[in-house]
């Protein structure tokens, strides 16, 4: 078995399994914590507040939007770009079709793939640069934040390096980093990819139940 076969075979299956089970374990754990029973009579729907809380947090209020514009543009550029790369990149669709799902869907054209890659890279670099440039962000960031950012960057960079598909070793390095990323994801702040809707929803539900207009 070659190194490439190993990293996109047994190692990928192991990493993907840990990713799915780990993420589920974390999500169920968070939901199971529950919250103290609120005995006051509800003034409005908590469920509606949950949904409104999620939607409202997609854009900051008033002056905060202007003050954090770099963060907003970088954040949306990176997250939407990464989503498009993973789920609409031809290489990724082929991989998912052949190894996991057994079906495929239309992929982005190559020019769009390259453009989205540029946007995603720019977004990620801006987010990390802001993390080290803003005194407050620098203080509240720890190793986990930096490892998550760098690991994601290396996964993307190795994927970019392997674009020519001329050397197996470049593809193998990319797959190795993908596997490490999948293994690290559930036990780090990368989990915000799944937990963001719970935290936003939780705040929204609390305010919604109290009848506060979001």
């Amino acid at each position, binding site marked *: 078995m070659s190194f490439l076969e190993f990293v996109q075979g047994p190692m990928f299956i192991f990493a993907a399994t840990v990713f799915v089970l780990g993420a589920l374990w974390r999500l169920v754990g968070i939901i199971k914590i529950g919250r103290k029973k609120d005995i006051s009579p509800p003034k409005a729907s908590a469920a509606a507040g949950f949904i409104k809380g999620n939607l409202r947090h997609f854009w900051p209020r008033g002056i905060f939007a202007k003050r954090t514009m770099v963060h907003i543009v970088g954040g949306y550029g990176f997250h939407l770009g990464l989503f498009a790369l993973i789920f609409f990149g031809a290489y990724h669709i082929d991989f998912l079709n052949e190894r996991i799902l057994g079906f495929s869907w239309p992929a982005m054209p190559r020019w769009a793939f390259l453009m989205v890659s540029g946007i995603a890279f720019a977004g990620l670099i801006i987010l990390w*640069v802001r993390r080290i440039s803003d005194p407050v962000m620098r203080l509240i960031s720890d190793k986990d934040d930096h490892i998550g950012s760098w690991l994601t960057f290396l996964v993307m960079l190795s994927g*970019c*390096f392997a674009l020519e598909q*001329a050397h197996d070793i470049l593809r193998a390095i990319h797959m190795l980093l993908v596997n490490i990323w999948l293994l690290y994801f559930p036990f780090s702040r990368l989990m915000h990819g799944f937990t963001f809707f719970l935290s936003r929803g939780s705040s929204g539900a609390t305010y919604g139940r109290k009848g506060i207009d979001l």
Partner: protein
Amino acid sequence: MQNQIHSFRNFLSLGILMLMFAAFVAPVAAQSVLPPGNAVNLDDGIEEGPSNALGNLSDTEIWDIFRGGNPRDILAPTIEGQVMTTTGQQWRVIREQYILKYLGWAPLIVIGILAVFYLIRGPMKIAAGRSGKTIPRFSLSARVAHWFMAAIFIILGLTGLVILLGRVVIAPYLGLEANSVLTSAALQGHNLFGPLFIFALIWLFIKFVRGNFFQWVDLKWIFKLGGFFGGHVSSRQFNFGEKIWFWMVILVGIVISITGIIMLFPSLVEDVRWLQLSTILHAVGAVGLIAVAFGHIYIGTIGMEGSIDSMLKGEVDENWAKEHHDLWYEEVTGKSATEETEAPAKEEIS
């Protein structure tokens, strides 16, 4: 011209003779000389032409007819009407004999000069020591723009050097296969990050152009050689050295961007010589920027105490501002830089 036509006729006559020779003699030779048993007969569909068609009469004048114009003039206005162009030969000579041989030394020479300078001069300390009070110098968005450019510059610099110098620096030591893998990776990375450099350049320009135009006080900086060899030099927000670096990044960056676009999309230019010129300008400009960037990194980190704070924290120590950007300090605070610097000295004397 008469001589040229005469030579051309000789050439054609010789060619016809050789073709006749090939037609009669080659089948006989094919029957008498058998290939080895393990030889592979590849049917690639390409018919072999007559060998040694020129015989022993290689006539440079015939080739001059084919070339037309001056083959050594890489910037000649047109190649229309020429059967072939030889500018590729000049391009290859420039690339192999000069760029690949010498260009890579430029960053190493700068590093060497900086190392010697550091050993002799040492770091430029804040003479009055840190005051403990800071004043804001760069906004968060300006710092993000700077570091974004720095990140893109490092990625493009590393991948670009692998593409340019891999064959002469990497291949002899790690082998051709390793160089092939690294160059393939670097090329993809370089092509993908290239457009981001243009974005970073525009962002950097917008954020830093204010204060980077020439001012009369810059003349003092020039006459005193920036104070690198002693003496105080007044300056506003940016001193003349910083201004030179800023405009170098912007102007050379524009050249690198345009030539990079031409190399990414060669069909944009009809004349192949623009493509050849682009590769040369791109390489020289980029390696030049990399070399000078080491000076920028040196003075921004170990070369000058307190300067890194401006880009990491956005604030600088007041004493640093008074010593290196006194006029800017006075503008920002409304205080006199000289008076406050002298005050502690008077106390010490008394």
